[in-house]
């Protein structure tokens, strides 16, 4: 969603700091797709992702005053969404180590990658054990290093590498590669 004419992202954030609901709504709608994109990758379904995204926005609204305007807002928001998603996973304490056989995704021809839509990818990711999926998301999509992942998940960096390798192997397997 584009911002209204005559207002920049920084100006919008500045106005949101006063708690003005109208501007908070603008901010929410402007970054909704971005936040949902992150939340979806860490969630089991769209409802869970929406809950994660909204919780992250609420945290962000509350912490706007401490946001450093010199840094990119997207990176700041991304961090909040990722943390919120991981927190939610921990709270739920659901560790679904689903078998690959349970994955609904059916293998496709080699060039299928470019044809995968959001739902296909979500099904594909849902076929991974949660810890593998989280490491894959953190490393491959969100750009965290293994050392950072090791800190976030409190696992050895070597374990992070192993989980990533296994995640990739399973994805290839699911995609029939």
């Amino acid at each position, binding site marked *: 969603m584009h911002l209204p004419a005559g207002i920049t992202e920084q100006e919008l954030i500045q106005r949101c700091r006063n708690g003005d609901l109208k501007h908070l709504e603008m901010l929410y709608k402007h970054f909704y797709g971005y936040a949902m994109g992150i939340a979806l990758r860490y969630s089991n379904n769209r409802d869970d992702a929406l809950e994660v995204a909204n919780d992250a926005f609420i945290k962000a609204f509350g912490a706007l005053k401490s946001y450093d305007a010199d840094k990119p807002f997207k990176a700041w928001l991304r961090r909040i969404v990722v943390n919120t998603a991981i927190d939610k996973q921990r709270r739920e304490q659901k560790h679904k180590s689903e078998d690959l056989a349970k994955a609904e995704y059916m293998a496709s021809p080699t060039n299928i990658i470019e044809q995968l*839509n959001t739902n296909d*990818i979500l099904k594909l990711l849902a076929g991974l054990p949660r810890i593998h999926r989280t490491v894959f998301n953190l490393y491959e*999509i969100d750009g965290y290093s293994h050392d950072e992942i090791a800190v976030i998940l409190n696992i050895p960096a070597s374990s992070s590498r192993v989980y990533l390798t296994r995640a990739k192997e399973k994805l290839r397997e699911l995609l029939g590669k």
Partner: protein
Amino acid sequence: MMEEDFDKRLSNHIKDVFDDAGNSDVDAGWALLREKYPPKNDHKPIAWFWWLAALLFIGGLGLGLWRVEKTGRDKGIKTIGKAHNDSAREHKLPQRINSKPANEGRSSAPSVNKNIVIAPVKKEQSNSAVTASALPHVQKSGLYKSHKSLKPVKQIRQKTTVLSKNENELLVNHTTQDDKAKAPPTISTDSEAISALNISALPDGISRFLIDRISLELRELAVNKLKAVKSDTSAQKTNVPKNKQLTWGVFASAFYSTAAGSDNESNLGGGGTVDIRLAAHFGFSSGLGIMRTTLNYSIPPGSNNYALSTASSFPVTLPPVLGFHNYTAKLLALDIPLNLKYSFSKPYNFISAGLSSNVYISEYYDQVYTYTPASSGLPDVHNVTQSHFGHADLFKTFNLSFGIGYPINNRSALIFEPFFKAPLSGLGSQKLKYALVGINLKLNFQ
């Protein structure tokens, strides 16, 4: 190599797909968020309560000020009237003073026409006494105050009894209160007063006996009069606060907030009070205070069983687990007490009990979750909830206090008031049960 290329393509495609999940359901998302943010509160009853409390307070304040002003005005009128009368009487003064030498000159029988001084008085005191007793109206008018040998005198002089030649009254002299402390009150009879009794016509022994007898009775009479004057004056003094229906006060309080699981936190407050006397000892007390209350519920690091049990449930490894660590509440509230007050016979000492209502100006709650194990180095997660004028508790706090007062003057007193406030149910939007124990330092005035 092919596998790496495949992985790269897959990752890039996922990034592209999820870079923006689209805004198809953004409105639904916003509607869902609005259910949680900002926290919904029914502001209407609170607003009404707030306005009602403010109206009562302002009304009471206005009434009190009006009464104080009226009392002051009435007193001013009385004082002016007295001063006017006294100044009119002042013109008669020279006649009385001038009549004295003539009396002295007329005294021909020394056995009768002598001044009887029962108590020994120094010459200077005696002079003062004569002047004071002879000129009670001058004392009242304030002219007397300018006399360099005398200090200002108040109401005690108004009760001076004079025995004059024509009126057969007792002449009782009072010096200033300081002088009185130094010397007992003197009673003198004017020689003309004795001569007016025609005692001189009697034999010398009888006349002496009569004079002694009369002087003794006069002395007793004077002492009784003095006692009456004293008790009257002290009654006036003690009646000053009793006659007042409204008492105002300002206070500053220091207190501890305490709750199960919370540390005892020291806090401060302040405000104003109004006391309305309903009966001799009973009254009604209200006011408006502002209080800052802090509560801090802590769980020592390592005692987080929830986090540990959660951590142990991970099958593969032990990733850091979030667990509750600390909970802080900072409340800024208006306190509106409605108390019944029992005043003891000693002024300004009282015991008071009742209920309080609170309107929360600001509520700040911070739940802190920490990662376990602590070696993970992950930052704490804060779940902060804030609201302004978002909640009110009606009559949910029980008040108990007692006051010990020290009068500063007739119109004001300093009161130390230890107090205890206990919750009757959960207070604030998060229903915390906490008690307050502290002391008010109060300045009461009428």
